[in-house]
């Protein structure tokens, strides 16, 4: 069984890799297996985790025993019925006549997503980031650990330049996103600096992405030549 397993895995791995040469039946076969298996996988997992694990056991809690063997009864969570109701309304789509009902759960989901994320992002992405940008540029009063004396400690040039760069970058980056003013004149030039910073950001992302993708490939190579063929220690 172990041998079959490794060979199946290797067969499918090479099937996907063969796409690099060109589209071919081996790839198409692997791809179809992939689509079928993955759709089925999520179908099953969502059923057991959410419909059964969340809804069913929440509404009809199974009996549990504590260490002493006493039965612990949990109160059924009636709120879960609302979820099930929304889900069933969703399935109304299967009957074309009642398809419009599915708009209600959709409206519900859209509304709650909008409400929830508004606050979450606002606090983490806006408030915290603004707060994080406010910092002294040149130095600050600190307690000297050696003498215990409180004195002004200037930052190193490295930090000062860095802090200035963060300040300028954040500021000009925001200017770039301004919608109410055409990018012209001084404003345009500032926005241009902003886009430079954005480009550096993207460049760094690109660099890291290369790194990440290569790592994944390395992992697969380790499987093919190590686990499968045993050529790598």
């Amino acid at each position, binding site marked *: 069984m172990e*041998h079959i397993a490794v*060979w199946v895995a*290797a067969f499918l791995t*090479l099937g996907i890799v063969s796409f*690099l*040469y060109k589209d*071919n039946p*081996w790839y198409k076969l692997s791809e179809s297996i992939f689509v079928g298996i993955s759709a089925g996988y999520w179908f099953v*997992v969502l059923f057991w*985790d*959410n419909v059964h*694990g*969340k809804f069913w056991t929440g509404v009809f809690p199974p009996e*549990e025993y*504590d*260490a002493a063997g006493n039965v612990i009864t949990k109160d059924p969570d009636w709120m879960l019925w609302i979820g099930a109701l929304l889900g069933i309304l969703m399935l109304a789509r299967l009957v074309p006549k009642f398809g419009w009902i599915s708009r209600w759960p959709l409206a519900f989901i859209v509304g709650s997503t909008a409400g929830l994320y508004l606050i*979450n992002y606002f*606090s*983490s992405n806006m408030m*915290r*980031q603004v*707060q*994080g940008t406010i910092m002294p540029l040149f130095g600050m009063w600190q307690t000297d650990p050696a003498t215990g004396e409180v004195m002004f400690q200037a930052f190193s040039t490295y930090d000062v330049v860095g802090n200035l760069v*963060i300040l300028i970058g954040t500021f000009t980056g925001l200017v770039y996103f301004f919608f109410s003013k055409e990018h012209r004149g001084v404003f345009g030039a500032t926005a241009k600096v902003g886009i430079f910073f954005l*480009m550096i*950001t993207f460049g*760094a*992302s690109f660099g*890291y*992405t*290369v*790194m*990440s*993708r*290569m*790592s*994944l*490939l*390395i*992992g*697969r*190579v*380790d499987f093919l*030549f190590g686990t*499968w*063929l*045993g*050529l*790598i*220690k």
Partner: protein
Amino acid sequence: MSERAKEILVVGLILILSIIVYLGKVGGWIGALAFSPAVSIVVIILIFLALVWMLVRTLRGQLLDRRIVFLFVALAVVLPFFMSITQEIKISPEVQQLYDALESLPPGSKVLVSFDYDPPSAPELQPMAESFLRYCLLNDLKVIIMGLWPQGPQQADLALQAALADPRVQQKNLEYGVDYVNLGFQAGNEFVIQRMGANIESMFPRDYTGSAYRDLPLVRNVKNFSNIDYAFNLSAGYPGTQEWVQVAVDRYGLWMGAGNTAVQAPMMYAYVNAGQLEGLLGGMNGAAEFELLTGLPGKGTKYMLSQSFAHMVVIAFVIIGNAAFLTSGRKKQPLGQGK
């Protein structure tokens, strides 16, 4: 011979070759391959010469076929696996920060490790997971494992096995439920984190093996994040470090660090700088640096040579492509913004 026949022939050859090698592995008459340093250098020179050839060809105006590029990348990744060359690794500040945070924890501290990734990202995150767990177990830190991705706890199990296989860890006779515990997966993304902030048991009534939460000595007294001394999040996307920071750090003040895929890492620097994250391992080299700091070399270090080569090759491709572009007088302007 027709194109089709050639293709079938090549596939057949590969198949036969791999069967032979596989039988050799099973039978034990083919061992692992390793180049001597001299051979390694020759291979490196060959790779370099191939790059020069590509540069010359591209400068003459013939863009290389994608497949040649592909083949070259494959070689540059595979060959270093067999080389016996070492390279010096340098520690980045955010890795040092993570290590310092861990070092500051007294023995017996409870460390929460959330495995939020799946097998496709394992090559990057598994090395981190292994060395992190190994470090914790060796230094008497109590490890509480959980996952927000369904496949996370499975990955955690693999990492645990690897960490427990270390002879020094074995000597400690660690016990499941006392020294480490795997709470399993819980669906619900950031809401799980949020509810854990109030009550961890409500989210994980049973652990991965099916034992009740309150029967596990390690976590019996762990009510919520206030009982966790440090948290480490291995993340490959959503839900992941961003959600942990937004909910657990920002709202509950959890002290945490993270290990991220290299793709995600740049976004997390903003959090490291704002003090929301205490330490960050980014991608394979984050893993290798951490292994170096802890003195526990593992997969990260092993993969690092291939990683270096792959980077060099990509950089070479960018240079070659741009050299051709600049010498040809920037003729082909693209549509649109021209960015």
